[in-house]
Each structure stands twice: as structure tokens, then as C-alpha cells.
């Protein structure tokens, strides 16, 4: 009896090895619309997603990675691949930020996941520099809608590019730390790193 299955030995390992080379070839051919890369950080694993326009998404370990990547497939493109090399610049700047060496990111951003209102709120947030804080009310006032503090809070909560777009610098009246997509301990860590909170 002829057994052909025997000839397909070691397929698992070979497939994994071949997949590694695939990402580079695909990226070089411009076939990766969304490149994913994972990195370790003091606040846990971060997954970054990069398009041809720039950084489109930062995913915290506390979020459901698979679900968030599915959302990227729906809203940006299903041509998503783990292609860490494409995310090198982003990971390098984040590393420098966590080391305390980088106070301002220089990364191109892809803002397509932000609604027009969220975009406006986050633009205002980006003007709060490293080490600074603003309240929801102040951000609302800055975009000319002083009564929209609650909507501002919701917009910040939907920030697809946390850390790099510093929604963590916005706090409640009186400096109270309130909600954060990555959870309050992460917000507290970032603000402590930036020296805006007394340790």
C-alpha cells in the first residue's frame, strides 16, 4: 500500500519557517495594507499596526487582540500580516519613550479610525506636551465647545492610537484620574513616567 502522507513530514515547522520569509517578501511587494508588530513594554505587551500612511492603532494587552485585529480587517483592509520589520520605527520610538529619552513622537499617523469629532479632540490633546495635563473641560473649551466635556471624554476613550496620541494627559477636574482604554494603572504609569504625578 502506498502511503503518501509519510512524504509530507515536518510540515508544521517548515510552514512556520516559510511564513517568516513571507512577511518580508509581501511587504517589499507592497501587498501588506496593515503590518502588525508586538513589543514588550513596562505596561505589558503592545501591538502596533502600521499602514502606508503611518501608525493606525496601538493595542494594549488588556484588549482582545484578535477582536481588535478583526476590526482592523473590517475598517482598514483584510490584507493584514505580522510584519515586525515594517513596525521597527514605531517600536523604536516607543522604546525610547518608555526609557524616558523621548518626549515627542515623530511618527506619521494614520487617523482614519477617528471620527471627525474624535480627530478634533485628539488634535487638541496633542497640544498638551510631555509632563503637562489638561482637564476634559479645558479640552472642550479648546475646541470651542465648552459644554461638551462628556463627549470629549468619550472621544478620548475611543483613541485608536493611545500613548502616541497622548489622551492619558487629560484628567478630571482637580487632577482626578478617570477612565482609560488600557485601564487606570496604565494611565497612572504613563503620567508618572512623564513626571506629571507625584510618585
Amino acid at each position, binding site marked *: 500500500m*502506498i502511503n*503518501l*502522507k*509519510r*512524504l*509530507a*513530514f515536518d*510540515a*508544521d515547522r*517548515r*510552514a*512556520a*519557517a*516559510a*511564513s517568516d*520569509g*513571507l512577511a518580508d*517578501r*509581501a511587504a517589499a*511587494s507592497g*501587498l*501588506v495594507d*496593515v503590518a*502588525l508588530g508586538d513589543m514588550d513594554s513596562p505596561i505589558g505587551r503592545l501591538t502596533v499596526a502600521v499602514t502606508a500612511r503611518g501608525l493606525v492603532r496601538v493595542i494594549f494587552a488588556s484588549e482582545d487582540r*484578535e477582536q481588535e*485585529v*478583526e476590526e*482592523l*480587517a*473590517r475598517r482598514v*483592509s*483584510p*490584507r*493584514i*500580516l*505580522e510584519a515586525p520589520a515594517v513596525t521597527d520605527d514605531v517600536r523604536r520610538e516607543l522604546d525610547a519613550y518608555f526609557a524616558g529619552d523621548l518626549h515627542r513622537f515623530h511618527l506619521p499617523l494614520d487617523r482614519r479610525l477617528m471620527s471627525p469629532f474624535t480627530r478634533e479632540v485628539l488634535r487638541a490633546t496633542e497640544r498638551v506636551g510631555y509632563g503637562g495635563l489638561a482637564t476634559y473641560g479645558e479640552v472642550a473649551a479648546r475646541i470651542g465647545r465648552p459644554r461638551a466635556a462628556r463627549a470629549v471624554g468619550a472621544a478620548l476613550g475611543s483613541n485608536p492610537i493611545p500613548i502616541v496620541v497622548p489622551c492619558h494627559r487629560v484628567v478630571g477636574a482637580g487632577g482626578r484620574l478617570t477612565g482609560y482604554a488600557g485601564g487606570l494603572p496604565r494611565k497612572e504609569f504613563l503620567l508618572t513616567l512623564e513626571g506629571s504625578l507625584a510618585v
Partner: protein
Amino acid sequence: MRALPPFERLLQEQRTTVMRFLLVAVGPHDAEDVFQETFLAALRAYPRCDDPRHLDRWLLRIASRKAIDHHRRRASGPVVSSRVPDRVVDGPATPDAALWTAVAALPPKQRVAVVHRHVLDRTYADIAAILGCTEDAARASVSAGLKNLRERVA
């Protein structure tokens, strides 16, 4: 219209199956290269994928085309005398050497059909959909391929 899953997930879920197919359909020597060509072609075509409910079949259709193209290219290219022995050398230990030689001598379409049936255990209906032929034609290719193998291995 069903949404397409992230390509990365398709790759993770199907890569071992595609590799098993290619290891026997083109041989271990070229499997990695044809594997990458398969997934590159799939990535290129993915947004226009017309069969989101059967992505495994859709991928194997591309892999089959790439395997057959690979053999055609080889057949029309300059004859490199070391080619067939390459496959034998790359195969596992000696008992399989005769089998590898027999598989390598199959006409590409028969080889691909036989691998779908006897390595991946696909149904004839599936094989017909993958190869774009009738179920009868799929059955005929598989049985002709097996007959050829038996004659050569015996």
C-alpha cells in the same frame, strides 16, 4: 457578503495544510518557495476573493495552480540533470526514495490530484472545485495517478 478575516489568521490556520500539499506536490526542495508564491498571490487577490465561505479551498486552488505552473516552468526550462535526484536526496531516509522518484515522474495534474486525495484526504467534490473540473475528471486523475505510482513503485 461575509467579511474577510484578517489575512494573518488565514495564514496561521491554513499554512500547515498548504505546506503538506506542496511538500508532496512539488517536493521538499521547492516547497518553501512555492509556498511563499502561493501566499503572495493569495494576498494580492484577497480583497477580491470570491469564496469567503471556503477560504481553505480558495487557497488550495491557488496552491494547485502554482504547483502546476512550477512543473511547467521546470519542464520548459533548461534541463538540469540534478533535479530529480535532488528530490530524492531531500526526501526522508531511503525506504521512501523509490516512492519520491515515482511521485516526481507523475504528470503534474495527476500528481496534484493524488496529493489532494491521499495526503489531504479531500473529497472528490472538493478536488473538483479546487481543480476546476468535474467530479468524474477528478476521480479519473486520482486513479490514473495511483495506477502510475503502483506500477513504478512495485
